[in-house]
């Protein structure tokens, strides 16, 4: 395995822990390599979207898929670049089963100079019986020269 991928594995787990929203959902990266990224989020009653059925909110699946797609982009690159989601399309095939953890498996199938393209599925037991499928595009080197803390200023460049 390349040094970069080895480093990215560490970065990925720090990303999950150091990203407040990922940490709030309990996201963890199970694997990260040239075949993509596999992440999971544990079932949590606080994240129920339909109180009648106990099914987890679609938003949790959305956030997990976004995070998994982003990490798959990092795994497909040769060096670290700041990335940002351009668009994310999600098909919800069926409700997740109440009580089950959610997994997301993402694969970045094309990286160009400025854009990376990713496919992903979210599932609760079997990747071949997905809860949702996603297709996303990411912009590479998206920081546009913005420095850390740029967004915290009263008026950021738009």
């Amino acid at each position: 395995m390349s040094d970069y991928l080895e480093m990215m594995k560490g970065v990925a787990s720090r990303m999950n822990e150091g990203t407040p929203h990922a940490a709030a959902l309990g996201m963890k990266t199970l694997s990260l390599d040239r075949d993509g990224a596999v992440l999971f989020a544990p079932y949590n009653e606080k994240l129920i979207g339909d109180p009648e059925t106990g099914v987890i909110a679609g938003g949790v699946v959305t956030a997990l898929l976004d995070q998994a797609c982003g990490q798959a982009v990092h795994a497909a690159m040769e060096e670290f670049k700041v990335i940002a989601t351009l668009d994310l399309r999600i098909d919800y095939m069926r409700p997740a089963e109440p009580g089950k953890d959610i997994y997301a498996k993402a694969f970045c199938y094309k990286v160009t100079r400025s854009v990376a393209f990713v496919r992903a599925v979210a599932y609760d037991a079997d990747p071949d019986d997905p809860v949702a499928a996603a297709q996303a595009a990411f912009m590479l080197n998206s920081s546009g020269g913005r420095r850390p803390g740029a967004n915290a200023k009263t008026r950021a460049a738009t």
Partner: protein
Amino acid sequence: MSDLAETVQATLARIPYAQFLGLRIELAGDEMTAILPFGQHLVGNPVLPAIHGGVLGAFMEMTALAQLLVTEGQARQPRVIDVSIEYLRSGRPLTTYARAEIKKVGRRIANVHVEAWQDRRSAPIAALRGHFLVTPTADEG
């Protein structure tokens, strides 16, 4: 607060995930604005800092669902079929607002567009288009 606003607010209060995000709504007549106050637990990029893209998607999804309750009245919570989310600007650590426009409601499917913004309505930070499976109140039973 109007009865309608109370009904929708009560529906949101029963959804744990809406509480987790901190989402609430305001109604001016039948025009609804969804409001997501900034919170540390919403951050996806702690360096800038920026709100998680998944949070913005989820927020707009919930806005569409709430708008369907407001406009159509639903026997059951609508189900999301698909969404397409466009990210236009990074979500800064500010309150985010969203409004939904129902483009079409058929007997089973609704098409909804949502736009989210922060300090300037004319500079949206994200947009969503989605299809939802609906169960209008009239069809109940």
